[in-house]
């Protein structure tokens, strides 16, 4: 079953800006899906329409088979949303925010309290349950919004840049939590600027730019599109000059670090063999940039260059 089905979704703002130009998108039940795009691409508008905070101009949306024009309440009941900006009452207590949200979904206080306890504990916020929410740190506020979004146990969880401005330790613990939630059956749609996040978490990805979906595929297939990858090799001993290696173009970053671009048809083993034969020992290796990030930049900039060429 499809968790989300979008057909020809469009949005034109009163100032004439066309934020969405008739996008089509399907997300399967149980998927962990990333919606990527540069700033102003239309991601937040799309999420705003899905969560009833933005009026659409045209198109159809179905959430678990519920048409949002005809069965709005049933569709909304399936969705939990974690917005980009903090949007809870800063004067309310942490636990009250979660319990009240459950109430809006028709869950009585008696049922909501144990659920709030469970999610606040899972997200390390239980100790703060009686604190006014304004006293929480940035990372805690983000986790509170996740607990609030989950309290009615939605089938589809939408997260709009949930880890923005969160330190790496908390980000990784949030990733772990989201993986668990997804493994338990919740479909997750995520927008993020951290492409490492999308590569690590998501099975399918759509890239949106200028209000249009420019790419839609599984993460694996998308990464396969990268024809070359650039690696950084850290060496055990210092070099004076760039070594000559057949079939590979090496650049020196500094005396113990070289950079090499490898075509996906070529084996990396041959490079290591030749380096080893020349007496150069590699201590460690890493991608120069995140692979998805590289692909994303190429696609978005490639698309822009094509458009610019077409317009000129």
């Amino acid at each position: 079953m499809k968790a989300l089905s979008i057909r020809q979704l469009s949005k034109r703002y009163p100032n004439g800006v066309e934020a969405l130009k008739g996008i089509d998108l399907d997300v399967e039940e149980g998927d962990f899906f990333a919606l990527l795009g540069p700033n102003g691409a239309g991601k937040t508008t799309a999420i705003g329409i899905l969560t009833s905070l933005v009026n659409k101009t045209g198109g159809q949306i179905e959430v678990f088979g519920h048409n949002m024009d005809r069965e709005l309440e049933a569709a909304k009941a399936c969705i939990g949303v974690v917005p980009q900006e903090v949007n809870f009452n800063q004067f309310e207590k942490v636990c009250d925010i979660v319990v009240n949200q459950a109430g809006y979904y028709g869950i009585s206080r008696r049922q909501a309290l144990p659920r709030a306890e469970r999610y606040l504990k899972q997200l390390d916020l239980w100790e703060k349950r009686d604190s006014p929410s304004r006293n929480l740190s940035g990372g805690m506020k983000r986790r509170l919004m996740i607990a609030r979004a989950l309290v009615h146990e939605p089938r589809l969880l939408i997260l709009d840049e949930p880890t923005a401005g969160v330190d790496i330790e908390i980000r990784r613990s949030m990733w772990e939590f989201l993986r668990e939630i997804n493994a338990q059956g919740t479909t997750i749609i995520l927008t993020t600027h951290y492409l490492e996040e999308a590569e690590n978490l998501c099975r399918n990805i759509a890239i949106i730019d200028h209000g249009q979906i420019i790419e839609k595929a599984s993460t694996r297939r998308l990464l396969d599109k990268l024809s070359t990858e650039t690696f950084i090799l850290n060496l055990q001993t210092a070099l004076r000059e760039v070594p000559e290696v057949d079939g590979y173009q090496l650049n020196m970053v500094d005396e113990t670090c070289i950079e090499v671009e490898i075509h996906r048809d070529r084996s990396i083993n041959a490079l290591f063999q030749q380096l080893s034969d020349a007496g150069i020992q590699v201590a460690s290796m890493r991608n120069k940039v995140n692979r998805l990030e590289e692909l994303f930049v190429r696609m978005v900039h490639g698309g822009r260059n094509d458009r610019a060429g077409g317009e000129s």
Partner: protein
Amino acid sequence: MSRRRQNMVGLYTIVHKELTRVLRIWIQTLVPPAITMSLYFVIFGQLIGRRVGEMGGLDFMAWIAPGLIIMAVIQNSYGNVVSSFFGAKFGRHIEEMMVSPLPTSMILAGYVIGGMGRGLLVGLLVALIASLFVPLQVANPLVMAAVVLLTSATFSLAGLINAVFAKKFDDISIIPTFILTPLTYLGGVFYTVELLPGPWRELSLFNPILYMVNLFRYSIFGVSDVRLDIAFVIILAMLIVLYILAFYLLKRGIGLRA
């Protein structure tokens, strides 16, 4: 659980939240009207009232007491919803309700009941203070209940409409300052419209607050400047018009959704 029951839970949640807020910030919500009204009773009732003598067949203190009580109900019902709803809009936590399956009618009812709750609470407080200065009776409890409920609901709706259009905090004080307060003062709280010269008396009849004040005064002392049936029709009509407008604004998401 049935959808209707879920909606009732949602409605209860909003009302509970609103009333908790009123009681949590009691120093802002309950104390100021109590002090202001006490001053009215002391200055206008005790000091000036003695020199005024009778008004409309009643002792002046007795004449102003019902007007001041209903004025407190009006101002506090309006003030509660306009500040709470605008605060939720400004702080964006109104989105918590907008993303939920709670129907527009329930969101509207939740805020209106919250406003009515504060209006009635403050009205009761002012009535207690008034009873220290003048013996109050209840000549017609049914009329009293009806007029207080209708008035507080009407001005709660008006406050919500104000909040929907407000873009900054200044915008939520414009209507109370320039429209609500003058209309209340000119609505027969301190005088009987019989004292006004012809054209001014005719003009006063277009002021809906005049009917609310007079109905409430009738419910206490059994005297009124206006016909009761016309007064009820006017208040009901105002309530219905404001409800339809508020519902339309919320349903369309005007001032709330992009």
